[in-house]
């Protein structure tokens, strides 16, 4: 017995000395920083769930390059300071080869200098355009930029003869990023913003703002926020009997929104969304079809909660990294980065990614479709 122990210890020691080569079985470590708790938990929770689900799936399929993968998730509690300490730990202690997340723009921008310095590729799940403009060598992102969503809304509005809109945005990072784009793109799109109101992300009554909007010349309302605020707005709008069209952002593209707002209050609301939410209506031939249906079904079966486009961001981030490792045949950070940048025509839940040295988001406007809430379900508009 004793001899046996000694032998195995010697074997272990020998293996340690030999290092990498002998350790083909050592997992490839991929770091993740998500806002699992705190105000941005609506992003971080589905992202963490998705990353863990995809990790299992990749490992079940034999891993990458013959090695298993391990996704090390840290929660930044929606606080950029925590993201900074977490990224240090990922790079210096866990020695990850790539990082997915963070969930928020603030955290992403706070850690960007750290990943540049540590030369570890980062695929962020946060939306703001500032993350990839100007391009940072090691920083990529998966969500569509808000600009694309705003363009879709304005185009739809214009087509329906609407030229004056009221905007009603949440006073958090998501809402204020939307507000900025809504104001900047208005003139170019031939739309005038006649009222500019905001609401607190935790506010429970938006009657005052809506009453004020009702008294303006607005022909439609564009609301930018994430649950529960927009659900309250949908309810208050019905209560006040406001009949002008209500546009929402992709931030509410989840069945949860309809549940919170109530079927009758959500009826007719228009929004740009990824195809994930209308997976059943996507044409059979569409390259995303199979992917979306599988992801939505598995997620809902495993976590017993409606799928949202946010989880999709993490799905895409991890898929992109996995794909880069596979195609570059290397799990070294620098090689992953180079391989990521060569990604071309890669379909994921959000859209088709084509990265170039000058474009680290790589999506086109096609990533969004306009949908309408009809009878408690989602209807894709042609």
């Amino acid at each position: 017995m004793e001899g046996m122990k000694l032998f195995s210890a010697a074997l272990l020691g020998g293996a340690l000395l030999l290092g990498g080569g002998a350790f083909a079985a050592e997992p490839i470590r991929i770091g993740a920083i998500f806002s699992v708790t705190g105000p941005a938990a609506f992003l971080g929770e589905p992202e963490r769930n998705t990353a863990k689900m995809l990790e299992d799936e990749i490992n079940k399929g034999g891993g990458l390059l013959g090695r298993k993968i391990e996704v090390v998730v840290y929660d930044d509690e929606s606080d950029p300071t925590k993201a900074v300490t977490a990224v240090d730990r990922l790079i210096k202690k866990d020695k990850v080869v790539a990082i997915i997340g963070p969930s928020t723009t603030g955290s992403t921008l706070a850690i960007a200098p750290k990943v540049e310095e540590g030369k570890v590729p980062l695929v962020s799940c946060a939306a703001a355009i500032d993350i990839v403009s100007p391009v940072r060598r090691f920083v990529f992102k998966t969500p569509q930029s808000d600009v694309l969503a705003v363009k879709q809304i304005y185009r739809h509005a214009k087509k329906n003869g609407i030229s004056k809109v009221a905007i009603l945005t949440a006073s958090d990072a998501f809402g204020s990023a939307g507000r900025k784009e809504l104001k900047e793109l208005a003139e170019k799109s031939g739309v005038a913003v006649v009222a500019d109101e905001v609401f607190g992300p935790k506010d429970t009554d938006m009657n005052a703002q809506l009453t004020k909007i009702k008294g303006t010349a607005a022909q439609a309302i564009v609301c930018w926020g994430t649950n529960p605020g927009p659900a309250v707005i949908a309810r208050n709008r019905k209560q006040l009997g406001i009949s002008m069209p209500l546009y929402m952002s992709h931030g509410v593209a989840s069945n949860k929104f309809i549940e919170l707002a109530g079927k009758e209050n959500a009826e007719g609301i228009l929004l740009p969304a990824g195809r994930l939410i209308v997976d059943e209506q996507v044409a059979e031939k569409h390259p995303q079809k199979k992917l979306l249906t599988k992801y939505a079904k598995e997620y809902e079966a495993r976590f017993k909660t409606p799928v949202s486009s946010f989880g999709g961001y993490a799905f895409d981030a991890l898929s992109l990294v996995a794909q880069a490792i596979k195609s570059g045949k290397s799990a070294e950070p620098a090689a992953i980065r180079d391989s990521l940048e060569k990604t071309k025509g890669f379909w994921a839940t959000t859209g088709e990614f084509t990265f170039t040295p000058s474009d680290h988001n790589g999506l086109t406007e096609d990533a969004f479709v306009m949908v309408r809430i009809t009878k408690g379900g989602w209807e894709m508009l042609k």
Partner: protein
Amino acid sequence: MSSNRGKGSAAGLAAFAAIIAAAPFLLPDYYQSVLIVAGLFAILSMGLNLLMGYAGQISLGHAAFYGLSAYASGILTTTFHWPVPAGIAAGVVLSGVTAALIGIPTLKLKGHYLAMGTLGFGVIVYIVFNEAVGLTAGPSGLTGIPRLSAFGKTFSTDREYYFVVWGTAFVLFVLARNLVRSRMGRALRAIHTSESAASVLGIDVARYKAFVFVLSAVYAGIAGALYAHFVTFVSPGSFSFHASIQIVTMVVLGGMASLWGAVAGAVFLTVLPEWLRAIEDYDILVYGAILVLTMRFLPGGLAEGAERARGTLVSAFRRKSPASAAAASGAEGRKP
């Protein structure tokens, strides 16, 4: 205790300096950023402890002073291209001046009304950070703040920044220590015990209270400016009501009216989540439990705990009774 207090505390200071100097070399690399954050909180909680622990005035809006300076320095150096030291100085001055202005009416309030006054001030400042988009970039946060550079040197690595932050913390510690031992410190404690009695004794209560309020805001301002040039990004979320409560918690956990406690509380509560990562989702419960249990079993905070542990140890050695020595070492072993 009092006879060798001077000598003991000089030794304590030397030990403190030695720990600061050695820590980054003894701990793994990835602890550096955690320790920098801990240092910032140590400065914050020392300042708040002067106000709460010594002068007995509660503040539930201290994150406002922290944020004002962080934003001021961030905006001045980013949007207006001021050199970083000038930005920091301006930020600290802004925090101090704001404290002086709101301190005069606010400090007339007592007890829960004072808590509400400071809390309300914190909420207002937080809303301004969110809404003054043109200046603060709103809820998305202000990006691109330069790293600290002074005298032609940029403190770009974490190790360099660690020494800047903890060096500052050490200097501020010594200043605060001298202050509480001065005539001023005695006056503050008198105010804490009874304002009426203090004023009968000829202490200008209003002036002393205002002074210590401004001083604690200046401490918060220093921490805020250093924060901005470390993370290079500021957003309102870091300076919310929650942050104010966090600082109060550090002071209380460390021990009221103990500067060592303030430092210990800040370090403990910053490093603790690093260990708790293993427990993941449950850490929020642990945090709440610590607050409740400390208050119940160790109302004087870590400072009292250390004092008690020392007492037990000393008496165990004096008695040289094996039984009690074993008990004491057992108690020691259980302490984190």
